[in-house]
């Protein structure tokens, strides 16, 4: 069985140390430029575009969570819409019922999903590959109905309507500009945390379990603990994303968190690039904007167009967008240096 590869390893192993150093340097420059652009956008774009970009950030966080689980650790999940829903409802209920400040609800959503994910991860240990996919798929199916059942808390299928938060400290920003900056900040924090987690010992252990669980265990890695923990962390990321989505859209309803959302997340990490941190951002752009483009191209059959986009992407970029960029960069580096 072929396992997803850490995308930078094969491409860069073939290149010289000089190319690798150059790659590292330009990568940092690239991130700085990207961050500067991201900070400038709120003052250049309309509120509607900012809303869309905020959704991209939200999706990017969720995709990163799923990528840690599926891309790095090799556990397939079709159930992340469930954690996304738990995060969204945690925030919505806390704001709606108890008047909690929206910013405080986000860590609560994260911790709750961490625990839920960890607990779900324990029985999931017995399941591998497609069996795990099916178990998580069941989770995805169940959650919208469970949400409707606890109508007193969740508002049933009617959902909960929230208000958009105003910028704090009287900052001269529109609510959309503020939410953009707010989500961007959370995105950056979570991405830095994920980079640190995956770069060190823990990251190597996570990848080792994916590549060869028996060898990993022989080397002293507590496979079971790691796998459940990774499940928890992954769910926590997705839960935070769900919480942010509730604040951004200012509405939650059970039917928004269906199986299709879980599949959309999976599409996002594959298109963006499995086992790649930046891939989560590319994937988020894809799942946010490509369905809209498809609709602009053809009103009659938008999902057929979307399907074509997807097939073309997979054919042209089998390692996802992030993988293709790295490969292209490595080739360019070899030629130049």
């Amino acid at each position, binding site marked *: 069985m072929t396992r997803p590869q850490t995308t930078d390893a094969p491409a860069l192993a073939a290149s010289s140390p000089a190319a690798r150093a150059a790659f590292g340097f330009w990568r940092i420059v690239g991130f700085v430029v990207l961050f500067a652009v991201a900070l400038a956008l709120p003052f250049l774009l*309309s*509120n*509607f*575009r900012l*809303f*869309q970009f905020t*959704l991209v950030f939200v999706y990017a966080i969720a995709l990163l969570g799923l990528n840690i689980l599926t891309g790095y650790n090799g556990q397939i999940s079709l159930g992340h819409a469930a954690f996304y829903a738990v995060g969204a409802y945690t925030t919505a209920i806390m704001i709606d019922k108890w008047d909690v400040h929206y910013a405080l609800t986000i860590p609560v959503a994260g911790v709750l999903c961490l625990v839920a994910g960890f607990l779900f991860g324990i029985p999931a240990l017995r399941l591998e590959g497609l069996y795990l996919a099916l178990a998580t798929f069941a989770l995805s199916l169940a959650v*919208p*109905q469970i949400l*409707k059942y606890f109508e007193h808390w969740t508002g*049933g*299928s*009617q*959902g909960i*309507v929230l*208000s958009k938060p105003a910028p704090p400290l009287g900052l001269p920003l529109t609510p959309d500009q503020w939410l953009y900056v707010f989500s961007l900040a959370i995105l950056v924090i979570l991405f830095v945390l994920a980079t640190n987690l995956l770069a060190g010992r823990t990251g190597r252990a996570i990848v080792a379990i994916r590549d060869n669980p028996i060898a990993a265990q022989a080397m002293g890695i507590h496979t079971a603990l790691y796998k459940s923990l990774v499940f928890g962390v992954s769910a926590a990321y997705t839960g935070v994303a769900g919480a942010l*989505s509730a604040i951004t*859209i*200012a*509405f939650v*309803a059970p*039917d*928004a968190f*269906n199986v299709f959302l879980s599949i959309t997340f999976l599409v996002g990490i594959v298109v963006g690039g499995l086992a790649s941190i930046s891939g989560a951002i590319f994937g988020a752009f894809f799942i946010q904007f490509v369905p809209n483009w498809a*609709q602009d191209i053809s*009103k009659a059959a*938008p*999902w057929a167009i979307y399907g074509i986009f997807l097939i073309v992407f997979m054919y042209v970029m089998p390692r996802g967008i992030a993988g293709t960029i790295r490969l292209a960069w490595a080739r360019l580096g070899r030629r130049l240096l």
Partner: protein
Amino acid sequence: MSTRSLTLALALLAGLAMAAAPALAQTPGVTATEIKIGNTNPYSGPASAYGTIGKVISAYVKKVNDEGGVNGRKINFVTLDDGYSPPKTVEMVRRLVEQDQVALVFQTLGTPTNSAIHKYMNQQKVPHLFVATGATKWGDPKNFPWTMGWQPNYQAEGHIYAQYALKNVKDPKIGILYQNDDYGKDYVKGLKDGLGEAGRKLIVMEQTYEVTDPTIDSQIVNLKNSGANVFFNVTIPKFAVQAIKKSHDIGWKPVHLLNQVSASVGVVMRPAGAEASRDIVSTQYLKDPTDPEWDNDAAMKDWRAFMAKYYPEGNTKDAFNVYGYLVTQTLVHVIKQAGNDLSRANIMKQAANIKDLSLPLLLPGIKINTSPTDFYPIEQEQLIRFDGEKWVRFGELYDASKK
């Protein structure tokens, strides 16, 4: 960037800002030659059977434009797919209002989807006209002065069924199947209000389903076993077909009251089968295109000619296509009545000032009326019974506004 080019850029920006300023004074989406109207419809997803409404509206708008538009303005109808998913509706409606700059939003379809944008539309003060849902909450001018429904609301209809059952069924025992959301509960509330305190005991069983459920077979079996002799069927078309078939298959023959949402011959009754759907009772307010009574009716002939010319791929047996045609006529009436003042406030004012508008495809006697305190345009309905082929009207017009 040199100082000079920076100055130039700033000057350009200032110029742009000034050029844009006068445009802000006018209503967005309205020019001397055009009025831009936004819409979302489920062209994909679980509720895509309703997608034909968006298509027939587009077709009718094309007809209006071909005939010179309204007061010399062409209608630019921008319709987007939301797949019946509330977050997508929010995104699409924000795009319509903020980016496409529509003058008003019209006929957004679905109860959860409209709930998601209800507050937004009223905060933005953009007319949210004639939403395609019969929930009762859309007629709340005090708290939501920018939102208005169109079709008779679900509670009023539930009321009619209650009166019908009390009057016509001996020793009624009522079993209810409803969709577990606002739409379903609205109907049930209407029925219970109509039955009154004492009548409520006549309800022997309530069953629900989720819109995501694959089938409702077990609910139908439960209802049969409850001994109910009146079946109040509050389901959307897909489940209505299943309910009619299943109750027929298991030999349950109650007085079957089917909500108007699914009273379509083409989409529900015919697929369920003539034998199974005979004697079902429902309500109607528009002329059913499958009813031969209207074959020589001038309005129906006009509609058929319209369908043939502007929407030839549309189903001429589908009452949704009559619905979309009528609701667009109502909109055109409002825009016409607004004259040259197409400010959002005036559009809303005119929408709340429709007096005895009778459209040719409404059933005889039914008139559209609104006022600043009455945001329910259609409040009259007619009882109908299915004879295996078509709906047959019986009894008098029922007027929910005269309770």
